[in-house]
C-alpha cells in the first residue's frame, strides 16, 4: 500500500468514527466559548469561527513546538525542524497530486505527516550509519523535499500557481474544524509520548554517552524525537507555513534558555514565551491583515531580544554567582 493510499484509509476512518465526532464537538465547544467571550467583551476578531480555530491551533502549537524544540536545540539539532518542514511540503504536494490524479479528497496534511515521518526516520538512518548528524545530509534532505514538492505541484497545475502560498506561509483563515481536530490529535500524541519518556529524552539530550552507559537505548530515542518533530512540524505548518515553522521550535527555546536555570524551568518558560508570541502574533496578524506565520515569528524574536536583555540584567544582579572558571585548563587530546 502506498503512503497516499494508506493515508486515505487513515483519513476516511476517523472522519466517520466516534472519536472524531467527540473531538469535533470539543472544538465546537471551544469555538462557542470564545465566541461568547468575544461578544461579552466586544472583541471583534472573536466573531469569526476561523479565529477560534486559529487560537486553538496556535495555543496547541505553542505548547508542543517548544516542548520538542527544547530537546532539539540543546542537542544542537535545530536544523532538523527546518529539514522536516521542507519534506512535509513534499508531502503536501503528494497529497494534492494524488487528489487531482485519482479524484480523492485526502487532506494534504495527512500525506504531509506520512512523508515527514518517513523523512525523519531516513534522517536518523543516515545519521546512525554515518555516526553523525551532518549539515550536508540535512541540507540534502531539506532541498530534496522542497524540490520534490515544487515539481509535483507544477506537474499538477501546469505551473506553480495553485494555492501553495497557503502552505509556504501559513494561513489563519483556512483553519477548518477538521484541521483543528487533527491538531488536537497530534498534540495529544506528542504530549503523551514526551510525558512518558521525559527522563530518557532528557538523559540523551544532556549526555548521550552517559545515557548509553545508563542503559538508555539512544538510537531508539533519537528516532522517537525526530518522529515527534515531524508531527509537530506538520501540525504547526498550518498557520506558520513551511518556511517559518522551524522558528517555533527554536526561538522561544532560545529565549527561555536566557532566563531559566533548570531544564524543567526552561521547558515551562519556553511554552509561556511561545504562547505570548502566538497569541500576540495572531491578534496582530488579524488586526493588520499580515501573514500569521511571519507576524508570530517577529513577535517571538522580539520576545527573544527582551529575554536576552532580561538575562543580562539578571546575571549582573547576581554578579557574585558568576562562573568560577577553571582557567589555564586547556582540554588535553583524547584517546
Amino acid at each position, binding site marked *: 500500500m502506498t503512503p497516499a493510499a494508506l493515508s486515505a484509509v487513515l483519513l476516511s476512518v476517523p472522519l466517520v468514527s466516534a472519536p472524531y465526532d467527540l473531538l469535533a464537538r470539543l472544538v465546537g465547544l471551544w469555538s462557542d466559548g470564545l465566541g461568547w467571550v468575544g461578544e461579552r467583551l466586544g472583541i471583534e476578531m472573536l466573531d469569526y469561527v476561523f479565529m477560534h480555530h486559529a487560537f486553538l491551533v496556535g495555543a496547541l502549537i505553542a505548547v508542543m513546538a517548544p516542548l520538542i524544540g527544547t530537546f532539539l536545540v540543546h542537542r544542537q539539532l535545530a536544523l532538523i525542524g527546518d529539514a522536516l518542514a521542507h519534506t512535509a511540503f513534499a508531502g503536501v504536494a503528494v497529497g494534492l497530486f494524488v487528489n487531482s490524479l485519482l479524484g480523492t479528497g485526502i487532506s494534504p496534511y495527512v500525506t504531509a505527516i506520512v512523508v515527514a515521518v518517513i523523512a525523519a526516520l531516513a534522517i536518523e538512518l543516515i545519521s546512525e550509519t554515518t555516526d553523525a548528524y551532518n549539515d550536508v545530509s540535512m541540507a540534502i534532505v531539506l532541498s530534496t523535499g522542497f524540490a520534490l514538492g515544487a515539481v509535483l505541484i507544477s506537474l499538477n497545475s501546469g505551473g506553480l500557481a495553485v494555492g501553495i502560498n497557503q502552505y509556504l506561509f501559513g494561513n489563519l483563515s483556512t483553519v477548518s474544524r477538521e484541521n483543528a481536530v487533527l491538531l488536537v490529535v497530534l498534540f495529544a500524541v506528542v504530549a503523551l509520548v514526551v510525558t512518558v519518556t521525559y527522563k*530518557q529524552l532528557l538523559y540523551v539530550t544532556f549526555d548521550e554517552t552517559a545515557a548509553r552507559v545508563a542503559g538508555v537505548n539512544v538510537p531508539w530515542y533519537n528516532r522517537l524525537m525526530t518522529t515527534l518533530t515531524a508531527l509537530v512540524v506538520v501540525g504547526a505548518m498550518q498557520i506558520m507555513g513551511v518556511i517559518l515553522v522551524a522558528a517555533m521550535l527554536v526561538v522561544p527555546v532560545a529565549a527561555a534558555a536566557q532566563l531559566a536555570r533548570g531544564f524543567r524551568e526552561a521547558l515551562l518558560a519556553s511554552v509561556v514565551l511561545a504562547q505570548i508570541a502566538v497569541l500576540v502574533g495572531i491578534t496582530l496578524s488579524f488586526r493588520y491583515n499580515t501573514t500569521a506565520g511571519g507576524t508570530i515569528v517577529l513577535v517571538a524574536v522580539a520576545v527573544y531580544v527582551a529575554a536576552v536583555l532580561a538575562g543580562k540584567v539578571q546575571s549582573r544582579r547576581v554578579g557574585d554567582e558568576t562562573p568560577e572558571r577553571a582557567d589555564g585548563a586547556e582540554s588535553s587530546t583524547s584517546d
Partner: protein
Amino acid sequence: MSGSHTGDGDGPLVEARDLTFGYAASPVVEDVDLRVERGEYVGIVGPNGSGKSTLLRLLLGLHEADSGSAELLGHPARAFAERERVGYVAQDVTEDEKRMPITVSEVVLMGRFPHAGFGRVTAADREHAREALRTVGIEHLADRKITALSGGQRQRTYIARALAGEAELLVLDEPTVGVDAESVDAFFDLLDGLVADGLTVLLVEHDIGAVIEHASRVVCLNREVYFDGDPTAFAESDALDRAYGTNVRREEGGIVT
C-alpha cells in the same frame, strides 16, 4: 560471547580477556587482559592515543570488541542490563560548550533514572540525590545552573550522579582535565573516601603522580598492557619509559614508538 562462570556476588566487577579493538587496520587496544575485583582502586595511565578511553568504552560495552571478551559485573558488557550499578564520568565533563540550562540537582537526579524507568521519580529518588550531593560536599550548589560551576564543582556533580544511582563501580575517563590544581587534590581525596566506603573505582588519568599516590593498582597501557600491579612497583619499574617511549628500549617485549 564467552560463557560467564562468575556470579554477581564475589566475582570481578570487570573482566577483559584478550580484548582487541581497532579502527581500520591497526588495533587501538590489543590483547588486553584486565580483571578488577570489588573494592579495588585501579588507575589506568598511558600516553595520549594509547587506547585508554577506548579500553574504558569497551569495558562499558559502548563498543563491540573485534576479538576477546569484556564482562561487566559477570555479564557480557554489550548485553549488560543492570546499568544503574555502573557510574560513568566522561572525559569532557568540565567543558561547557553546551549552554543547556539544567541545575545541579537535575543532573544528579539522572542517576536515579535507570531505577525509575518509565515510572515517576519518587521522593526516595530525590532523597538519594540529595544524599549524594552531601557526600561530595556540594549540596549548597543544588539549584545552580551547571554551566555556572567551576570544573571541579562540575566534576563532583557527575560523581554525585553516579552515587545517586547507587553505583558499585565508578568509571572515570580523565576526570581532572580542565580542573584547577587545588580542586584536583580535593577530588582525589574525595575518591579516596569513596573507595574507603567500598566503592570500586576504575580511573583513566593523565596525572601519573596522582595515580601512583592514590590508586591501589596501576595499569600502564599503550595499546597493550605494559604494567599491571602495585603502584610502588610501577614507580620503580621501567614500564613507564617503555610505554611512553621516552627511553626507547627494545629488548623486552613490545613495540615502542
